[in-house]
Structure formats: structure tokens, C-alpha cells
């Protein structure tokens, strides 16, 4: 039984049906309607669905309502798993217009047609037929053959593109299937950029093509591999399977060497996994969950596979909130500079202070630097914070007696523009009146490595002005010695980890001795950081360090307590009191 062959047939049948509610006829009618390929929905004047055949239910992804049991159209459409929000709205508006017009003006409104794109990409033709003043019905027709839009692919790799990835994921998330879950694996390549830069774009492109082939070779039938852009890929696994095992396999496979035009290239991969609807019921939140997992995987080091966990979301939100507060903190004057004394090991004489930034959060209290400095560096806020600390430290140091110096930390980010820091330093010195020789900038090895040429240029400019330059956390970087050759540092600050290990590690002793000897031969001050006990003080003195800094002398103190600290430290060492 084929049922209606045309809209005209349907119209004629429906016209008789609405005038006769006989139970048997209704049952028969439902049977007829359910056997027609055309989707049919009947509505009353209040836009309640009073009739819906099986085809229509299938096309819209609805559970078919009982015949003659009115259900409001919006509620019906809400259930639809094949239309997106825009489609549902367009559908509703079309019906609203016809019934509305008709009721208000009693006009004979012509049939309305509209085309909607279903989530699976097929085209749905919707025609609204007016029956009488109170009733209308809708016929639905899905275009199938030849009209299915082709998969949208990425030109380079032939994989699905980002848009297709999202659309398919939406279909998977909304399709009423037995296995209603879907796993998303987001894949990010490590070191791809370096290969692209060093070997050129053609090699980079060939590498991406090989990555695509390897991904294709490992996924199951029915999994979708997409290139989301750049060196970002995704594998969508309907029915989930074992996404973590797949992730591990992907990382292994992608990390194997590639032979391209005779070059051997080695890259890595990180994978973030989220499973829908558990980790996200809609496309956007599922992709976000996978993204958070990927972020965690990269954070945990290369070659990691991480599954989304609720606490990742919690942490991301907390981080976001903290970042929001951090953006306002400078304007709200929530930062403070604390000062930690540095003393000479031979004379125990106070030589100066290191300026250390603290953030007093209105609700969270004093936030330790390791919680906000990396965040501030990541988003570039560190530049403004660093410059504020510099100005404040110069002003504060002016109130200290004699030649006491002030050391200010400089972040790698502050070296991105080579002209900026020298200008800011000059302004800070001019505004405070502090002589340049009393200011010291501390820079870490990692900052130097990151912006080598620029950093050296900046440091030379500063040093030419008379500002002293010290290398912070010395001994932790991998290129310490080569850095020493590239710039005449005034001071090496020996990383606290060596001092901490002094009592139980011969290696730590050897490293400190070597650095102290190196400093002595190059005419540099060597400051041991993190000295907390008398024993450590004795050891670093015996090992040849010239200066020290640490809790043994004092923890960092607020600016207003510095004067008192200077008095107490100076009283202890009468022979040197006059020279200050």
C-alpha cells in the first residue's frame, strides 16, 4: 500500500477525515497514513498537532503522537532530533504565519513551502496546506538521491574538515540509537611547527598528509577522521569502543619517525578524549570537554592521552575566574612589593633587597606568586605587573640608606619588544631619582634562551646605562655555561634547589663550588638562594659563594617594614655600620 501519491490526494483525504471522528475510520486512516512515504502532520487552529504519520515522525525524529491527541507544535518540535534550533524555529514560524493570518483575517492563504536542511545534511521540503479556517496540514518530503551534500573535506589531507566534523558529531549526539554514545579524540601534534619552519612548507604539508594516512589506517570502520586546522586532528568514534586504547595507539603511531624526501622527521602527539553525552550533551560542550582534556594532556608533557574529568572543568573555571580577577588587580591596586634582604657572606653586611610581587586578593587573601605569575605570563599581563613592580621598587629603594641595591625580576615576556624595557627602566629611574647602579635586573636562563638575540640586546642597553644584571635560578637551565659566555653578568644567583640539597647531596656541593669558582674567576658576585639554616650558611660560605639570601636572614617583608629590618640587620654588624 503506497498511500497518497500526491499532496492533492492527501488534502482530499484529510478534508473528509477532519469532518468525521468515527473511531474505526480514525484507525483505518492512521494505518493508511503510516504507510505513506510522504510525511503528514495535521494541526488544529491552536497549532496543536492532532495527526502525525510514521514518515513525518521519522523525518523529524519524533515519537509519533497518538492520533487526535492534541500536542502543541512547539513541544513536538522540541523533541525533534533531525532539525537544529534554526530549523525548528523556521518550521514553527511558517505554521504560525498561516494559521495566524487565517484566523485573524479569514483569508484564503496559499500553500506555503519552505526547505529546511536536516542535521544529516539532507534537504527537507515542507509544504503547509490550509484546509479550512481552523485546520491546516503539513506534508514533508526528504530529498534523497543525488541531493545529499558531499562530505566536506580538507584540501590537503582529504580528511573531513572542521565543519563536517561538527555536523557529524551533532548527528551522532542527537540520533536516537541503541548505542547513543560517541567519543571524540582531539589530537594535537607536538613539534610540527619546528619541522615546518626548519624543512619548509612542502615537507610540512607532506608530513600532515602522512599523519592523515596513519590516522586513517588505525581507526575502525565508521570512525570519522577530521583535520580541524593546522596540526589539529580529531577522531570521532560512534559507539565509543575503547577511546583511551585508541588514543594510546594514535600517539604511538604518530610519534614514529617519518621519512619525507629523504629527511627523517620525528614529531609527537597529545590526545584529549571526551565521551558524549556523559561529558557534554551537545556538540559545543563535548568538543570543549575534549579540548580541556587535550589541554591537560599537553600540560602533563608530550605524548600524553587524557580523558575528560569533571575537575578539569572545575579547574578551568577557577583559572578563568582567577584570570578575570588578575586582569583587574593592577587597576585595583591589589599588588604589593615585598622585599627580601641579600647579605654578604664574608662580612654579613646587608647589600640590598630583592623585590618580590605579592597579590592580595580581596576574597582569597595573599595569593602565592607561583599561582598567578605563570598565568600572568601566559596572557601577557606580566608586562604591566613587572613594570609596576619596577617603578614601585625604585621609589621604595630611594627611602633606604646608603648604597643598598634593589633587584627586580624581569620576565621573558618583557623582552618581546626590545625597546620597551630600557625605556621603562629609564623612566622608573628618572621618576624615583634612584641611581642606576643601585638597580639590578634579574633574568632567568629560560627567558634568555627564548629570546636570545633580543634579550642580549636589551641587557647590553641596560648595562650601558649602569644597571646591574644578574642571572636568576642559575644552574637549572640546560645552557648555563654558554649563556655566561654571551653576556657579562654582574651576579649569578644559585638556584635554591642546590642549597636545599647541600646536606645530602655531594653533587649539590660540587655544583655550588663550581659555580662559585666560575663566578670568582669571571669577577661575578655569586648569591646562594634559599639559605634557611646556619649549617647551609656555613657551607655556602665555605664553598666560595659571596652572598646569600633566604629565610635565615629574613623572609620577604612588606615595604613599610623594610626600614625596621635594615635597622635590626645593621645593629648586628658594628664594623660595617659606618660604611653603609
Amino acid at each position, binding site marked *: 500500500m503506497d498511500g497518497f501519491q500526491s499532496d492533492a490526494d492527501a488534502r482530499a483525504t484529510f478534508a473528509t477525515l477532519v469532518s468525521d471522528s468515527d473511531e474505526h475510520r480514525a484507525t483505518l486512516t492512521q494505518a493508511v497514513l503510516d504507510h505513506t512515504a510522504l510525511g503528514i502532520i495535521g494541526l488544529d487552529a491552536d497549532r496543536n498537532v492532532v495527526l502525525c504519520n510514521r514518515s513525518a515522525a521519522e523525518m523529524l525524529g519524533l515519537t509519533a503522537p497518538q492520533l487526535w491527541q492534541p500536542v502543541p507544535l512547539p513541544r513536538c518540535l522540541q523533541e525533534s532530533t533531525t532539525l537544529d534550533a534554526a530549523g525548528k524555529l523556521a518550521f514553527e514560524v511558517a505554521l504560525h504565519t498561516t494559521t495566524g493570518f487565517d484566523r485573524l483575517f479569514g483569508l484564503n492563504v496559499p500553500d506555503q513551502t519552505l526547505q529546511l536542511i536536516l542535521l544529516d545534511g539532507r534537504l527537507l521540503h515542507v509544504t503547509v496546506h490550509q484546509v479550512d479556517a481552523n485546520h491546516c496540514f503539513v506534508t514533508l518530503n526528504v530529498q534523497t538521491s543525488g541531493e545529499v551534500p558531499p562530505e566536506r573535506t580538507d584540501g590537503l589531507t582529504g580528511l573531513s574538515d572542521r565543519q563536517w566534523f561538527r555536523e557529524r558529531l551533532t548527528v551522532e549526539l542527537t540520533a536516537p540509537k541503541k548505542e547513543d554514545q560517541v567519543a571524540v579524540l582531539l589530537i594535537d601534534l607536538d613539534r610540527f611547527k619546528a619541522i615546518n619552519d626548519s624543512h619548509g612548507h612542502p615537507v610540512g604539508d607532506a608530513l600532515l598528509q*602522512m599523519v592523515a*594516512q*596513519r590516522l586513517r*589506517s*588505525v581507526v575502525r570502520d565508521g570512525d570519522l577522521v577530521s583535520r580541524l586546522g593546522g596540526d589539529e586532528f580529531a577522531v570521532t568514534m560512534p559507539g565509543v569502543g575503547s577511546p583511551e586504547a585508541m588514543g594510546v*595507539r594514535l600517539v*604511538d*603511531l604518530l610519534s*614514529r*619517525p*617519518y*621519512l*619525507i*624526501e*629523504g*629527511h*627523517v622527521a620525528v614529531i609527537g602527539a597529545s590526545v584529549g578524549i571526551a565521551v558524549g553525552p556523559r561529558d557534554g550533551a551537545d556538540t559545543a560542550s563535548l568538543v570543549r570537554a575534549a579540548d580541556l582534556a587535550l589541554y591537560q594532556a599537553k600540560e602533563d608533557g608530550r605524548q600524553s592521552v587524557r580523558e575528560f574529568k569533571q575537575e578539569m572543568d572545575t579547574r578551568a573555571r577557577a583559572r578563568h575566574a582567577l584570570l578575570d580577577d588578575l586582569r583587574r588587580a593592577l587597576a585595583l591596586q591589589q599588588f604589593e612589593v615585598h622585599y627580601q634582604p641579600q647579605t654578604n657572606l664574608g662580612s654579613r653586611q646587608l647589600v640590598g633587597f630583592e623585590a618580590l610581587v605579592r597579590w592580595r586578593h580581596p576574597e582569597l587573601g595573599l595569593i602565592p606568586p607561583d599561582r598567578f605569575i605563570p598565568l600572568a605570563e601566559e596572557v601577557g599581563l606580566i608586562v604591566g605587573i613587572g613594570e609596576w613592580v619596577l617603578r614601585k621598587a625604585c621609589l621604595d629603594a630611594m627611602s633606604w640608606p646608603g648604597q643598598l641595591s634593589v633587584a627586580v625580576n624581569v620576565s621573558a615576556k618583557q623582552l618581546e619588544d626590545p625597546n620597551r624595557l630600557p625605556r621603562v627602566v629609564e623612566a622608573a629611574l628618572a621618576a624615583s631619582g634612584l641611581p642606576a647602579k643601585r638597580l639590578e635586573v634579574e633574568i632567568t636562563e629560560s627567558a634568555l634562551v627564548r629570546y636570545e638575540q633580543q634579550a642580549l640586546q636589551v641587557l647590553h642597553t641596560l648595562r650601558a646605562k649602569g644597571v646591574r644584571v644578574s642571572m636568576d635560578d642559575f644552574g637549572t637551565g640546560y645552557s648555563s655555561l654558554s649563556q655566561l659566555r654571551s653576556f657579562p653578568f654582574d651576579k649569578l644567583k644559585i638556584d635554591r634547589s642546590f642549597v636545599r640539597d647541600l646536606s645530602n647531596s655531594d653533587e649539590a656541593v660540587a655544583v655550588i663550588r663550581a659555580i662559585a669558582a666560575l663566578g670568582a674567576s669571571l669577577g661575578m658576585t655569586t648569591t646562594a638562594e634559599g639559605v634557611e639554616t646556619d649549617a647551609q650558611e656555613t657551607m655556602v660560605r665555605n664553598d666560595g659563594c659571596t652572598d646569600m639570601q633566604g629565610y635565615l636572614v629574613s623572609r620577604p617583608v612588606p615595604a613599610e617594614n623594610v626600614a625596621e629590618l635594615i635597622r635590626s640587620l645593621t645593629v648586628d654588624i658594628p664594623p660595617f655600620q659606618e660604611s653603609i
Partner: protein
Amino acid sequence: MTTDFFRLVYCSRNTISAGWSNPAAEIAEILAVSRANNARDGVTGALLYSDGCFAQVLEGDLDMVQRTFERIQRDTRHGDVIVLEARRAEARMFGMWDMALAEPADPTKAKAILGLALAEPNEDAGTTVVALLDGLVRREGDWANAA
């Protein structure tokens, strides 16, 4: 004979040896597939399997070596792939073989060489591994010629 050959030497570890009830049969199967592909692609070389480690030399046109290597890379029966040598070569060293099986007379020595190559992959390791395979294959060749 063409002189513009490419030679690639790599080491890797067997990842599923626990599942290999009969390693000799598995290796025989790998070899059979490899020989068929290589005969078609004009690739020659040698394969050594010793105590869970593979060492393989592939030589031929760059394009073909590249394709063969990529196919091997996607094989999940091995992992920890390390390329020891990838360079143009004057001539084939294993020209007689679609893929020779190098069976070490002294397994301890072979194991030591592969172990070292995986631990410290560098050019020296590559040279040593090639020499090892060359020696083993030559010996087999002599034996085959004599027989």
C-alpha cells in the same frame, strides 16, 4: 646499475611477542609479505630479529623506500622505532635479496648490538647494525652458493 639509491636502517621492538606462540612462523609471514611487496617495488634489504628486537635495512629508490618504510611504520606489531641511518647510497648492499633474513650465528652479540643501537641511536650504531646484517647475509649467501 643506478647509483642513486637510498638506504634506511632502523631498529624497533616487538610489541606483541607475548602473543607470538611461534615467532619463527610470524617472522616467516612478515618476510613473505615483505618480499612480495619489495619485489614489486624494487626494494631490497635484510631483516634481523633477535630477542624481541628488529633491525632492518631497506634500500632502493627514495620514493619506494619511503613508501615501504611508511607501510612498516603503520604495523603495530612493533614499536619504539628508531631510524639509525637514512641517506643516499652509492650502490645496493643487499641487491640479491628482496628481503634477506639475517640469522645471527652469535645471538648474544647480535642482541648486544641491537640493545646498544636502541639505547644510543647514532650514526655509529647505524654503521654497526648494517655491518652486522651485511656479515650475516654474506655468510648465508656463501653458504647458499656453496650448496
